[in-house]
């Protein structure tokens, strides 16, 4: 019995240490974690729909706006962008790794509202009637070649027939761009718009905006965050260092207070840290700076349960129970208190999760997952360790536990 316990305990600890060093050295998890903008560098913005009077914003409008933004972001060639609706009338956009941040954002929020009007001012065609738009040069002029869809082409043909010899003014974003005279009826559904573009790039941008369609509602940028890759890297280094120091300090404190039991709790804490990071990877959580704060904070909280249990066990020992009996009674009595005390932190985390914005949610999620995992490592795992240690006879010397 005794030898088997020693063997099992030593084996278990060896397995955990081996696994721990494998994870720390080869880093199979942290390399696959998804890091947020604040750690990777990039740009994030929040847009708010500012509806024109009489045109309320509904979920359809928002979906359309998101679709258009996605199209434009695609054209920017950003890898792993995040575009999502926040609340009722906001869209948050995250573009990791974008170099020309300001220009990219300007492009996103821009509208290109094309209108071709009759000489009497009636709107005949809009950007919605286009099937394609391409930036091009015609007769030495930069411009946008417009192609209408079949319905648009029919209207265009009818209009050019009806207003032959008159002008059909073209408006972009409500501003008159040009007012060409109709020379002949146009049947192919093609037109060339020569705005006052100063470069082909500018004409191409406008063409892209026309291609993506006009935003169904004007978007106002209400927040902007840009982070350079250097700063992101510095933050990762700083938080890794903080996590390492925190775990060492907590580990030393536990050994100082609870000796052998503290050491076993430290091993359980190591297991906790790996399980937590693994769980965050499994739920595809994005790791951000507040998320890391959550991880570090939760390591301090994870040993809470151990402290509660060990204090209780020590108390029972002082009251004259045998080590094995003290361990059983201590664990049993402590679990109720642990459950009740973790519950309030969990309640706060749930509220934060549902009310908080993006990165605050990450913190709350880390806290919730951490509480659940710590119940396993601090109660079940540590109990297994300590029972084995007690059977092995190590905890028989009261001083080991009582300190």
């Amino acid at each position, binding site marked *: 019995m005794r030898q088997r316990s020693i063997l099992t305990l030593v084996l278990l600890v060896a397995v955990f240490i081996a696994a721990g060093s494998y994870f720390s050295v080869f880093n199979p998890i942290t390399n696959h974690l998804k890091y947020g903008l604040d750690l990777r560098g990039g740009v994030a913005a929040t847009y708010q729909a500012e509806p024109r009077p009489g045109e309320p914003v509904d979920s359809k409008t928002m979906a359309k706006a998101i679709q258009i933004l996605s199209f434009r972001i695609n054209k920017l060639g950003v890898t792993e962008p995040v575009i999502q609706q926040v609340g009722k009338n906001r869209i948050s956009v995250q573009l990791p790794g974008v170099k020309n941040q300001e220009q990219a954002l300007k492009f996103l929020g821009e509208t290109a509202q094309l209108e071709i009007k009759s000489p009497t001012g009636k709107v005949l065609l809009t950007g919605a009637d286009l099937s394609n738009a391409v930036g091009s040069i015609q007769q030495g002029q930069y411009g946008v070649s417009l192609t209408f869809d079949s319905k648009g082409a029919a209207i265009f043909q009818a209009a050019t027939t009806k207003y032959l010899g008159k002008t059909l003014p073209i408006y972009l974003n409500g501003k008159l761009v040009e007012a060409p005279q109709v020379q002949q009826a146009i049947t192919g559904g093609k037109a060339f718009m020569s705005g006052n573009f100063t470069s082909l790039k500018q004409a191409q941008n406008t063409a892209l905006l026309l291609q993506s369609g006009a935003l169904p509602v004007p978007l106002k940028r209400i927040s902007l965050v840009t982070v350079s890759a250097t700063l992101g890297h510095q933050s990762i280094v700083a938080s890794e260092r*903080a996590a390492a120091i925190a775990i060492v300090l907590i580990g030393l404190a536990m050994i100082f207070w609870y000796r052998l039991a503290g050491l076993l709790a430290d091993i359980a804490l190591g297991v906790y840290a790996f399980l937590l990071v693994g769980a965050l990877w499994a739920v595809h959580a994005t790791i951000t700076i507040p998320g890391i704060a959550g991880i570090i904070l939760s390591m*301090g909280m994870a040993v809470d349960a151990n402290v509660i249990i060990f204090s209780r066990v020590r108390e029972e020992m002082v009251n004259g129970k045998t080590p094995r009996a003290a361990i059983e009674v201590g664990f049993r009595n402590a679990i109720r208190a642990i459950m009740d005390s973790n519950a309030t932190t969990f309640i706060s985390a749930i509220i934060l999760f549902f009310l908080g914005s993006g990165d605050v949610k990450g913190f709350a999620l880390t806290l919730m997952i951490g509480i659940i995992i710590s119940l396993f490592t601090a109660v079940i795992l540590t109990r297994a360790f300590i029972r084995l240690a007690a059977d092995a006879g190590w905890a028989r010397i009261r001083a080991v536990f009582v300190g």
Partner: protein
Amino acid sequence: MSLKLDFIKHWKLWFILSAVVTVIALYGIFVRGLNYGIDFTGGTQMNLKFSHAITTQAVNRVLAQDHLSQSTVVMIGTAHRQVLVTTPTISVGQRSQLLGKMKAVGSYQEISTSQVSSIIGQQTERTALLAVILATVAIIIYITVRFEFRFAVAGIIALLLDVIMAVGMVALIHVVLTTYFIMAVLTIFGYSMNDRIIVFDRIRENLHRQKKNEPVQDVVNRSLNQVLIRSINTSTTVMLALAALLVLGGASLRDFSLTMLLGVFFGTFTSLFIASPVWLLWRLRDDARRKANPKPVRAD
């Protein structure tokens, strides 16, 4: 282990001490005021790193040209190369214009920017208030179900004092606040309740084993002495983690770590010295009333 402190006997002293700290904290909150950052007020903050040493005056001159003289410029580090410029809310165009003019000071790299509209700030405050109310109600319900109403109210009183003290000290130190500050306050709401629950749990357990004619005061005192070491130890581990975060975790989390650190510290104090005496005084009053009226109106 032979430690025997009389927590209850000096309850008036603890209450006076707490009142003094609370008054200082309230002075901090209402007179000195919290140092709200752009997350709350709206505005633009730019972190620029220049290729050579510069002066804040040079940066201020550029700001003054754009009529942004109410902005603040803070040097980061000792090399005088990196500055944090905070301006009131400016438009996209104004920002690029300003960044263009900054080149006159020296060539620079834009390390980070954050721009927040004041709409978001107002919303942040509203959401935070809602979260605090929800958390308070949820915790009161939880403790009432698991323990009793008196514990819930005593716990919440201690919790509110804890939060006021922590926030007051944050105001006095005048750290610039971000949305993470709210995250910290809400976490305190949940976490600093842990301590009180451990205390209440022990009081509840000891009440079951209460000997005949043993006064409730003694039960409470015994319970507090039993959990004292544990209480200090658990707070210490969390405070160690927070201290590491405060010193090494970078500037963006400073307000979070500091607020939490203070919250955990005051939380431990109020658990031991406020929550239990409040509960005890209430319980003794109820007991006295029951003795005076042998037939209570409420059948509980």
